[in-house]
């Protein structure tokens, strides 16, 4: 089977495909202290989306990962400025539990907010920690989306994700970075729990990662993401395009799965 299928040919020719726009479920607009980004602001993010044919991105600005008092309102402002292009994650920092009730309410009543963003590594706080539980319970009851940074290590390893899955099977849990590099465990989670999804940021470039994930789990459990402005969406799109998978798989990963989850 040739990898340069009709869909891939069209991407190569046009740089995008009209009936397969891209939805990016993992982005962090704004500056970041330890990395130079050429285009971190709103204008740059929109230009990047234009270059890569991204129709919609789900955002959690860097600032919101650190200072929720400052960062979440910034996220809402961005949503208000770009309601057609952005959806937002409400960032919950477990070191500020006084913001729990606001976090519960805002996800339900703020237009464009689709769920929560957790970053247990940055927050140095395990997914199983006490302060996360009320939020996870809430998300579970309301079947809300939770994008968590997942990575080998104490706070948000694949084992920690399984701990969450066994207690909160109704929430829609997006494993950001697919538990890098514990991919076999991440595949098992996505197989075992219908609401647990693999997200591709940073692992898509790993050798044959996309091929393996599709083979092990099925394309319907993969969500496209880039950490934009960290990574060029076209780099990630190229990894999906040239994986040894079918055009239906590519369409599901780049667009269809997110479209379904976001009820577009």
């Amino acid at each position, binding site marked *: 089977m040739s990898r340069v299928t009709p869909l891939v040919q069209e991407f190569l020719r046009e740089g995008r495909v009209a009936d397969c726009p891209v939805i990016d479920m993992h982005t962090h607009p704004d500056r970041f202290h330890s*990395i130079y980004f050429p285009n971190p602001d709103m204008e740059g993010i929109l230009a990047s989306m234009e270059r890569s044919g991204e129709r919609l991105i789900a955002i959690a600005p860097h600032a919101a990962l650190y200072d929720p008092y400052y960062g979440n309102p910034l996220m809402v402002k961005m949503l208000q400025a770009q309601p057609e292009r952005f959806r937002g994650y409400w960032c919950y920092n477990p070191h500020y539990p006084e913001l729990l009730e606001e976090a519960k309410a805002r996800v339900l009543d703020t237009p464009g907010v689709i769920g929560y963003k957790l970053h247990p590594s940055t927050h140095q706080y395990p997914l199983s920690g006490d302060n996360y539980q009320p939020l996870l319970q809430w998300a579970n009851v309301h079947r809300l989306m939770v994008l968590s940074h997942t990575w080998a290590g104490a706070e948000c390893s694949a084992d920690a994700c399984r701990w969450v899955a066994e207690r909160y099977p109704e929430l829609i849990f997006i494993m950001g970075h697919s538990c890098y590099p514990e991919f076999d465990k991440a595949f098992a989670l996505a197989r075992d729990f219908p609401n647990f999804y693999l997200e591709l940021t940073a692992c898509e470039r790993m*050798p044959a990662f996309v091929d393996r994930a599709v083979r092990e789990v099925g394309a319907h459990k993969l969500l496209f993401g880039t950490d934009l402005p960290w990574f060029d969406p076209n*780099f990630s*799109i190229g990894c999906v395009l040239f994986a040894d998978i079918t055009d239906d798989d590519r369409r599901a990963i780049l667009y269809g799965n997110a479209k379904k989850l976001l009820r577009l």
Partner: protein
Amino acid sequence: MEWFDCHAEIGRRTVPGPLQAPDAAALAALYSEIGIQRALLTHTSMYEIHALTGNTRILQEVAHHPQFSPTWAILPPATEELRDADHFLAGMRKSGVSALWAFPTGYSLNTNTFGSLYEEMVARHIPLFVKVGAVGWAGITSLLAEVKGLNVVAILPTVWGEDRYFRPLVEHYPGFHICTSMYMLEGGVKAFVDRYGPFQLLFGSSFPDCQPGGSYFSLLCAGLKEQDLVAIAGGNLRHLLEEVRL
């Protein structure tokens, strides 16, 4: 436009990865599908077994694949494993090898170790490829500072934006080049080209450690002027190798 990959590896690794190409034929088949016309190759044996073994095997592998160009691995001249510089360079000339690789496990890249070889490399414009992860940015900086005029091609150690490390080196050393295989930074290539021009970037895949389609599609869609894209995709590497005088 010709795509000329500056960094791809063939061979069987001790611990095989999911993408490895055991031989040149396997890589040729894959690259033919993707649309990469040429590649500068290393062989796994160069660093997993011995430089001499890998240097021999890579020649055997590329013999029937003219789209692939061989590289050789270096070792410190003092141990005479590769005999003296004259003999080594004569072998390069005879075998059509125009680029060298350092895999510095068990040796240093300083001028005490490679001074005599570096002199020849500078005089003959022979580029040296090295993974930054093997020596760190401090090691690359020392190498460039100590060996004026050496053409160095760096494979980035991570995909997490390294511009703050390598841009100062790009500004100071015209012979310093970046392989694009791990340059995933959003807008990075375009911003680089806008500031420095295209000539210090070389398209590379780092196959089999990276999915080759990423770097390829990213460059294709980077919003570069046609001539800049042509240069990075293959022209710069071709020019670099054409400059070599053996």
